[in-house]
């Protein structure tokens, strides 16, 4: 273990806001979001890229922020759950999850909604199989997924008009 670790300067945009930061090379993206930027809506569940509680959108693609170093996000645009609502109004995906009882403890929900975001922004009529595949990397331990399937179908419908 080195005595001192040189920090690396990075710049990234999170939820539309530009940040210039110096981070340790070993800092994970999720640590940066949670600890430095205080965006604690992004969660950690498994540490091994299985559960997707840490899912965020990086340049529009869903990624697991526990499996990326913060320095790899240099220059990127990131969307987290905190950036979904606009002007205080819930995003149609958030509304769909709420209306469908698509959450219980709510720990997996931010990651699930961002995986849903990636799916339904492009696809307003996802098939059952497309829905299942879109969230294959998001584990939920409370809901048994049934109401999440409903929520994603409803979100896709909500997005049609959006």
């Amino acid at each position, binding site marked *: *273990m080195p*005595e001192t670790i040189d920090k690396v300067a990075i710049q990234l945009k999170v939820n539309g806001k530009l940040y210039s930061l110096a981070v*340790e090379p*070993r800092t994970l993206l999720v640590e940066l979001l*949670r600890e430095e930027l*205080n*965006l*604690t*809506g*992004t*969660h*950690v*569940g*498994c*540490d*091994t*890229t*299985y*559960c997707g*509680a840490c899912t965020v959108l990086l340049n529009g693609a869903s990624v697991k922020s526990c499996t990326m170093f913060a320095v790899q996000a240099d220059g990127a645009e990131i969307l*987290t*759950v*905190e950036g*979904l*609502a606009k002007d205080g109004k*819930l995003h149609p995906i*958030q509304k769909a*999850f*709420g*209306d469908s*009882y698509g*959450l*219980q*403890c*709510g*720990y*997996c*929900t*931010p990651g699930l*909604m961002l995986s849903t975001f990636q799916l339904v922004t492009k696809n307003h009529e996802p098939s059952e199989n497309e*829905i*299942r*595949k879109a*969230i*294959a*990397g*998001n*584990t*939920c*331990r*409370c*809901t*048994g*997924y*049934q*109401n*999440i*399937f409903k929520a994603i179908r409803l979100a896709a419908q909500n997005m049609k008009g959006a």
Partner: protein
Amino acid sequence: MSGNGQKWVGKAVPRKEEERLLRGLGKFADDIKLHETLYLRFVRSPYAHAKIANISTAEAEKIPGVVCTLTGAEIASQTQPFIEIAPDAGGKIRDYPLAVSKVRYQGEPVAAVVAMSAAIADDGAEAVQVDYEALDPVVDAEQALTDASILHEDAGTNKVWNGVFEYGDVEKAFREAASVVEIDRMHFHRFSSTPLENNVVIGQWDPKDERIYYWCNNSFPSFAIQFLAAHLNVHIDRIRVQTFDIGGSFGIKITSYPQMAVCALASKKAGGRPIKWVETRSEHMTSSAHGNERTFRDTRVALDENGVITALTSRHIDDCGAYPRYEPLGCVIWSQVFPGVYRFKNARIDFSQAVTNKCPVGPNRGYSRMQHLWFLERVVDICAHELGIPADEMRLRNYIRPQEFPYTTPNGCVYDSGNYPKMLDLAKGLIGWDAWKKKQAEARKQGRMVGIGIGTTLDSGTNNFGQSQIVNPGAPFSGNSQGANCKLDIYGEVVVAVGSCPQGQGHETTAAQVVADVLNITPDLVTVRTGFDTERNVHTGFSGTYASQFAVSGLSAVHGAAQKLKAEMIRLGAHVLESKPEDLDFGIGGQGPEIRSKSNGKSINYWGLANIVNVNSAVLPPELYEVTLNCRYIWRAPFKVPDIKKKYGNLTMTYASQLHIAVVEVDRDTLIPKILDYVAIDDCGTVINPPIVEGQVYGATAHGIGAALLENCVYDEVGNMLTSTFSDYIPITAMNMPNVKYGHIETPSPHSYSGAKGMGEGGAAPIHTISAALQDALFDKGVFIQDSFNNADSLFRALHGEIGQTAKLVKVERRVGSKA
């Protein structure tokens, strides 16, 4: 005036919890950041069983940013071992939060490192040197009982507990039986519901007031503080525990008190700074808690000429891992559902529990009852098959009948209500039983292995802690209780606090529904405090969230507090409005929620009432001084202490029931089991909030399906845990969760004020149901489904004669007069 008598209980009221959770503004323990926080990492044993020869923390302490370290020996010198619930010899086990002279499972913490950052604490933990001398590990409970290698020298035996549960006249029933079925061995596997949020503790031993503060996600805080106060030698009032949003527990977070102890002691050593410990997933998998593993030996079943079970004898061995902790309570808790849903009266079960070199167990969803219910469902299916009775018909012949409720079981439990035949009917209708039977017959002709299975289970809720005296006559527990407070705050807001510790069950919503009905207002006008806090003074020694009880214990407490508040509001309102109490109406007026007099039309809103009591009290006549509009109510379950010698008494208040049917195909080429169709029927009495109940059923169903087919805590023969990450353990995902057809019936409970029954654990019905379906698929292959966990690998071994051979494991004796 709105608040027009509309009732909210029973309605699909949207969850109050949703708004913050959807915005990413839920407050989970790891989200809490306190000034001057230090971070703690554990050094853990790579061995399942070894002597600790030496621990050197010197190198770790040299790392810049490491503040201090802590070892087991240091802790043992300043604390008491944790309370053991077992009588001797199990009671002699000495359990400390860090291993003292030896380690007893892989992942057991042996030291802790405290540092300025989590990363530095990680570096420090890696620099701690521990020398081990390996000992023989014991990973099988039956082997453990031979005491060839002893885990706890103070106890002198690996047997934690043993007791015989005998009722009726077993010998007579066997003498008179038309047939006797014998089953050699069955095994319920070890798994965990693995909440997505790991354990988190922030602990502070504040030298300024000598109090210990916790911000954490423990799910049974009033149990934790009882263990912590005795361990740390402090008055229980010195410990404050707060929880906030919790990312699931399923019982697994009940036993996080050892880590809570370490955080407090580390804080003390670090000068009172808050210590944060955030468990990693691998730590969670190896060393938080697993569900109980159980082996069933030498089972004998007596049946009459109609295939009705008349008696049963068996020997059950429970594996509690390296330390009993919540155990041996599981050694009696299974007997809440002693006969399951069946009518047999005569039975003898010899029950033992052993320690093994594996992760300690904790009360995982379906705790201790699901193992027993799985056993009974296996027995029923095997008997049905051996006697040539269809599985559905076998159940109808053996079910407790609807007209027999309330039904007293052989061991004195009172099943409040239920209608199992009706549930079976509904399930068969929803899944299309007859059509599937036809399809199955056609598939079999093509050589496909398709099976249809039924599982009928119970979710016993609100338990009588008097059953602890059955395992230990000296245990100072009995009954059950819960506390709640309902008040009008200074500006008239309705505020509710309750001693539960929710993790997604929607307690804020259902509590608001109950209060809204009492006061004839709307649930959005009721604020329900989030999480648990000892300082709210609404907890009893049983407070927390576990054992399927909030709808009964929690909401009864809330209802009681709301009634008390209402009575005070009536007293005050009658005085202020110059009316008779019976002339007062509750509702919502132009200035918010109010009380109005029917006789003179005068009204006063909640602000007005709260104003008088809190800040304008000179207008009160002395006879109303006792009105506080701040009402604490403790609800108590009407239990008696059970007869300890006979192991007889009512152990639980309500019995929700589940009936599931699964159609499963075992792929001919890969042997991967696939669910083709699935139905889940639930009966939890009067439903408080239908979508919340439905959500609980889906969740419990996913846990059961995951456990039946995917999730298994695997240890090798020397106690290495082979499933220590999610990628190895494979929690069920959207890719392997089938669509579930949901239905429900309501048989209101006569035991609760609202007719509701506790629910949520779901009896692990899918495990039994899938075992039954696999059994049905493989009967004609000579395979006996003897384990609760089945995957392509185990089915391959069974189909190749290595395990689970019916001919070897099941014997049937048919006697003269047997029609079956």
